[in-house]
């Protein structure tokens, strides 16, 4: 794994845009996340949050603009980007007919790591009791935890999480937050798409709001944050935005 100098941004996007057919989903987003930062990405459904994450993860190519992870361009140096990121999507993307352990063994083989950490990871995501059972029988929350275990195998420096709290119970949320915090503490960074702020309380350094395919102005961002925090009534009544 390459470790560029620490003065570069962990995530850097410059006017990144993406079009699907004739429809522009993102119209030029610029975003900078420093090492050690945890940033929440907010916005209404269909505003392009997931598209932005998928472009940063090299799964989609930008129609315009550029982006880099620790200085590695997501288009020109995609393989190096993949060595630095951990992407958690809506769907866990596990193999139903493999056991929990086999799923992680497969991931370890693909990454090029050994199998020695697998049992400890399964233990950490609290799935030891079902390690040899096929994933087909797992609940959505258990699958989420296993996907998190797979992501931890990658030892990624930049975490790109798309609504990571869905289907997770309280312990799962705590586990998710501890993994994000550890990554940030170790000099990594995280960009987390959120629909509600409560599970990430105390975790985020700041939030960025996407509106109409662009980064919203700070006032709009504060409004969105207040809405998510449940303060919408107060905002409507007083016309003021108060975000703790």
């Amino acid at each position, binding site marked *: 794994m390459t470790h560029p100098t620490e003065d570069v941004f962990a995530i850097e996007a410059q006017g990144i845009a993406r079009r699907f057919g004739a429809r522009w989903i993102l119209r030029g987003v610029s975003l900078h996340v420093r090492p050690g930062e945890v940033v929440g990405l907010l916005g209404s459904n269909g505003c392009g949050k997931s598209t932005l994450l998928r472009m940063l993860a090299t*799964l989609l190519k930008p129609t315009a603009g550029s982006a880099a992870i620790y200085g590695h361009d997501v288009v020109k140096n995609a393989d*190096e980007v993949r060595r630095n990121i951990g*992407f958690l999507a809506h769907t*866990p993307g596990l193999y139903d007919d493999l056991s929990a352990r086999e799923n992680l063994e497969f991931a370890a083989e693909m990454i090029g790591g050994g199998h020695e950490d697998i049992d400890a990871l399964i233990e950490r995501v609290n799935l030891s009791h079902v390690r040899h059972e096929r994933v087909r029988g797992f609940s959505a929350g258990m699958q989420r935890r296993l996907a998190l275990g797979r992501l931890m195998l990658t030892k990624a420096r930049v975490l790109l999480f798309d609504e990571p709290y869905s289907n997770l119970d309280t312990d799962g949320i705590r586990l998710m937050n501890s993994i994000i915090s550890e990554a940030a503490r170790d000099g990594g960074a995280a960009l987390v798409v959120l629909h509600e702020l409560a599970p990430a309380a105390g975790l985020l350094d700041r939030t960025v709001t996407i509106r109409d395919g662009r980064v919203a102005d700070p006032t709009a961002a504060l409004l969105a944050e207040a809405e998510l925090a449940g303060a919408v009534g107060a905002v409507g009544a007083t016309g003021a935005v108060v975000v703790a």
Partner: protein
Amino acid sequence: MTRVRSQGGDHWRRIRAIAWKDLTTERRSKAGFNAVVSLGITILVLFGFALGPDAQALRDAAPGALWLAVLFAGVLAFNRSYQVELDTGALEPLLLYPGARWTIFTGKLLANMLFVGLLLVIVVVAGMVLFAVKVPDAWPTVIAVLALGAIGLVTLGTFYASMASRSRAREVLLPLLLFPMLVPVLLAAMQASKALIGADMMLEAGAWIKMLIAYDIIFVLATHLAFEHVIEA
């Protein structure tokens, strides 16, 4: 030199992991292989009915019937090779692992070769019984022709399945893309098989075998080079 060896080891490890994963999920789900083999044998039986009771006509048609049965049954297998990833959303995590993406293709190709190889063995045995074909004297060459034909068929099938996997109409798209491209391979494999089992001694197997080898080399190289571009969104 060490770096080259290390990269080679990384590639092989990824190829092996993909092939193991595909074969394990297929073996555990069972439904896929049973359906593919049943289709292959049903096609052979239907050809038998269509050709009638004339033993010589059956023997003459045996190579063509065999390769068409493997082709149609194989399309089911190729479609399934990406089905697991598409059903579970596992294609994205697969694409996010760092490393050469052609190894994903090679791993799937290897798994499909074993899958279709087993299908071919069953269909050949069933075809020999149904069409009253005796074991030819040149049976090692027949096996070589079957292997060469299978390489061409599986390489193109796996490649076009990856291309079609990005489309909603993949079940329809795959045969539309695949069948025209397979014409030279199937023609060469059928003609070489026909010459070798003695259905028509005037045919020259050697030229068709050379053609099969040439197509296999071209297809294997071209598909590996193009895979990264077709699998990206």
